């Protein structure tokens, strides 16, 4: 069998494995371009890593990362935390995301996105998370948001 190219190609009975799924989610498309990689996970959380590079800089003079890549990192990490909690892949769409920026990421440092699903209903998942660049107690950003299941239900 050929290697699946996206999560949508996985069999319906596939028990969601964040480290394996991350390879799919982060090799192609936007995640691949950003260079996202799997970092760690628990029952309701997933961590992805975003390595710093010139092309992702939002302010040329300072070398500070643009907020776009941080949002993408947190969108993917929180998305995966939902499927990790469900233990299966449920196609969904991001309804909204709010990001509070505590401080700028230090140029050159890899950013870790910690995403957590704190509540699932049949059609809505509620997520939160932080992004940090080495010390989880000194985050770059806090994130909250919701996703909606588009085909099927979470529960």
């Amino acid at each position, binding site marked *: 069998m050929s290697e699946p190219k996206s999560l949508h190609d996985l069999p319906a009975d596939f028990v969601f494995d964040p480290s394996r799924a991350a390879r799919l989610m982060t090799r192609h498309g936007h*995640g691949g371009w950003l260079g996202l990689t799997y970092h760690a996970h628990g029952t309701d959380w997933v961590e992805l890593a975003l390595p710093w590079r010139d092309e992702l800089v*939002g302010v040329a003079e300072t070398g500070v990362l643009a907020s776009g890549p941080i949002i993408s990192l947190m969108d993917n990490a929180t998305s995966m935390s939902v499927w990790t909690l469900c233990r299966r892949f449920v196609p969904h769409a991001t309804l909204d995301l709010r990001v509070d920026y505590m401080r700028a990421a230090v140029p050159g440092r890899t950013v870790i996105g910690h995403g957590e699903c704190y509540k699932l209903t049949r059609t809505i998942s509620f997520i939160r998370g932080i992004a940090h660049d080495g010390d989880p107690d000194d985050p770059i950003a806090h994130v909250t948001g919701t996703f909606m299941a588009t085909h099927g239900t979470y529960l």
Partner: protein
Amino acid sequence: MIGTDLPPYADGIGIAIDHDEDGQPVLFMDFGERVMGRPGFLHGGAISGLMEMAAIAALRAELDRRGEAMKLKPVNVQVEFMRGGTEQRTFAMGQVTRAGRRVALVNAEAWQEDRTKPIALAQMKVLLSPAG
């Protein structure tokens, strides 16, 4: 003139100025592998990145008009996704709702072929401080 303000991220992901509309720059981003989320659709983070660039560009244009040199520091952003972005060109424009001396509130909208059907909205708060 405003074109020179776009940062490395904009060049990297493929965001550029389309045209100027009553002093507000309209930005665009073409569909491709590097902005794709689920197959055939734009990644929400790429749409957010485009809207953020549009919001900042609109704010810089407004501050330029006032002749104020300011350093910008984003405080937060709230993004609402209303429609999936499909495999075509996406546009975004920012609108400065309020820019005082310390803080600015900027809205941005992203759309594709039909401007009356935006695919996403963003609201961004930015701290202003005198440059230099």
